[in-house]
């Protein structure tokens, strides 16, 4: 049983809570996987029968399922790996997601043309078939979720015996208990991703017009961020695990991204440099930022915290994406880059404040890995 340094009664209560969290996570994860699979099928069917409203409905509920899947994934990762290789696991998670995105971007076009040759026509039925083929991967995801659920249940049985259904209920109002450090982490997350994803979305024309790239080159440089993050995320995760000091890594990542945006906006230097820097910074941030949530939030609030973080990140992305499009149409790319730089600066302000808040309240976010290990050994020895 974990945390055996505490009194037996508290241990039991904690076990109950941990168990309830586990069951919740398992159920939700499987449900969302099923959700995602079913809705990819609905989306593909909509395309097959040329019913755009059906496609929109499918995408809408897919959004609900898909994002919540990410939350459940994060909660799973923390419950299995906290105190151990958490940073590496987050890095690998991101890496797998990015590999998936890259494969999708490159293969789907090819599949579409193959299906087109097979069916002999373009149009909605070709699109529908292509999307159905894509849906096969969702089934694979569902199988993985079911295997994970089985493994988790098995872990329950081996580690702790199943107790009665007592323990604290998980409330949504836990949100008001979030500490200042957590809110600062939220701000960093929103402001950072708002300056990366919309930029990649709108970047192709920027590279074609400003740097005189061809269409293929512009697509290539646009996707370099994802291509870099696929192999680098586990490496950085491993690095942050070995060295600790998460806040310092986050600060490096934010400053590097700011430098990259400034380079792209104000100079004509080769944009490959800036984009590679952006890719490296993006991977580093993901590995160092997300595990920090596990350090500032008690276990029973973890799902809520991650869910909240995902949800405001997506809200921020949605709003900023619309704003970015409007700014681009009316004021052009220089203004847009300045706007993104301002977002990153906001994120940088939040990191700086987080560092000082953490330092002044004696928090453990910026401990080196050695210190953390020492304290864990001390706790285990008692």
């Amino acid at each position: 049983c974990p945390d055996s340094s505490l009194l037996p009664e508290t241990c039991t209560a904690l076990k109950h809570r941990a168990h309830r969290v586990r069951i919740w996570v398992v159920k939700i994860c499987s449900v969302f996987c099923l959700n995602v699979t079913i809705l990819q099928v609905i989306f593909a069917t909509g395309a097959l029968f040329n019913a755009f409203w059906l496609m929109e409905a499918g995408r809408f509920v897919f959004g609900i399922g898909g994002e919540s899947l990410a939350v459940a994934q994060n909660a799973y990762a923390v419950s299995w790996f906290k105190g151990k290789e958490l940073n590496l696991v987050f890095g690998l998670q991101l890496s797998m997601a990015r590999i998936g995105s890259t494969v999708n971007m490159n293969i789907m076009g090819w599949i579409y043309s193959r299906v087109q040759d097979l069916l002999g026509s373009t149009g909605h039925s070709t699109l529908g078939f292509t999307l159905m083929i894509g849906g096969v991967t969702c089934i694979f995801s569902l199988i993985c979720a079911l295997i994970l659920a089985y493994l988790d249940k098995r872990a329950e049985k081996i580690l702790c015996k199943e107790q009665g259904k007592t323990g604290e209920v998980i409330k949504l109002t836990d949100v008001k208990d979030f500490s200042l450090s957590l809110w600062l982490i939220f701000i960093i997350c929103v402001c950072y991703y708002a300056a990366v994803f919309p930029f990649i979305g709108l970047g192709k024309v920027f590279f074609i017009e400003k740097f005189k790239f061809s269409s293929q080159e512009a697509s290539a440089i646009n996707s370099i961020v994802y291509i870099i993050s696929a192999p680098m995320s586990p490496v950085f995760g491993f690095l942050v695990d070995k060295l600790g000091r998460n806040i310092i890594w986050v600060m490096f990542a934010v400053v590097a991204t700011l430098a990259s945006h400034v380079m792209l906006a104000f100079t004509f230097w080769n944009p490959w440099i800036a984009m590679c820097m952006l890719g490296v910074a993006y991977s580093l941030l993901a590995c160092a930022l997300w595990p920090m949530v596990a350090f500032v939030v008690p276990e029973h609030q973890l799902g809520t915290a991650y869910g909240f973080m995902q949800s405001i990140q997506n809200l921020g992305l949605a709003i900023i994406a619309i704003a970015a499009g409007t700014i681009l149409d009316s004021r052009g790319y220089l203004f847009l880059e300045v706007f993104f730089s301002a977002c990153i600066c906001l994120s940088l302000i939040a990191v700086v404040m987080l560092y000082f808040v953490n330092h002044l309240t004696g928090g453990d976010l910026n401990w080196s890995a050695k210190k953390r290990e020492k304290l864990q050994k001390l706790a285990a020895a008692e």
Partner: protein
Amino acid sequence: MLEGSRLLLPGLWLLASVSCLLGDAAGYRRKVTLQSIPGSNSSSANLLHVRAVGRNNTLHYVWSSIGAPTVLLLYTRSESSALRVNWTKLLSASPAGAIWVEPPGSVVYSTAVVFTKVFEYNGANVSALSKGQEEPFYPPYDLAGFSWQSVNHTVNQTALTAKFQGVDTSDPGGAFHNGTISFQVTAYEQGGRDGPLPRLLHTANSSKVEFIMDNVAPRGNSSRFMLEVVTVEEKGGHKRLQSVRSIDDEYTPTIFEMAQLVSEPRNDSIGPSFFQWKTTAYGSREASRENAIRCRYHPLQTANWTLPGPSIAHAYFGEGLGRSHHIAAINISFGGEDGEVYAEKGYLSWSALLGFGTPPKDAFSPLVMAIVVVALGTPVVLLLAGSLVVLFARRKRHSQYEPIN
């Protein structure tokens, strides 16, 4: 990296203010009048005279659709110089000397820009075109053979605009059944910036010409168009093609390049003339980024070019056109791999600025500067302030510690 960008900003601010001052110095007000010179009964014989009077000098722009659409830019050192036209000679077979300025000898500088042809080609296989092989061109539209509507009704004295609108008289393919090619002229009294896209910055020494294709039916599924522009430079002068790239696309979103033909400076320090344009065209009367059409220019061709007649350039420059005058041609193509904007919208509009003096250059707007300074400065300030706070807190903790002995 951050230090470099912070040095950049004061430098840019300085550049912006200096260029504003320079702009003001050259762009004082001129008194501009537009006059359509009545000549013959033929409505195609349009002659528009724009007279821009400044301090001790006058700029004459003579726009005409007699023959190929042409504009003459004449700079005179007198406020009372006037244009004279001999119509019978102008419309005859040898128009040399039919247009002149009185008092004679007051013209210090003259140049001409002629729009000769509109080419149409199949843009589907663009790579073949750039290699120069097998140009899939349709027969070109010769603008000298067009018939133009009378420019008299289109002259607007308050807005200082006029429009030359024409159709192909031969029109074998019926492309001009519903369509026209127009040149819209706008004169300026003082420096400023245009309202509609591409929001060219102009001075008082410049005029804007807008090439508009309205509903001309394309002859193929993926037709692209190309305009041939010929410049005439006198007394052995040359025009050079320059590409001005800027990081600032505030006024023309997503366009970072301004192309310009600038005449080389001469010994007598008479200011150069320029013909500049932003490398974009638009597919709608309400120009916006969504209907932008890719505009590309090809290298300036200078070797052994002769100006095909007729044109009022022959009337003004006379027989010297072939010998002492330098003629160069450039092709400007519209449309790229990004889609069939013209085929969908049936409208194409491209703006260019013709003027005298140094070509105007865009500068940063104060808003961009302000945001950059605030955004980049605040984290640094915060970092310093936070470090000071931490240092003080540490010193306080140390000072409260009392040694045991």
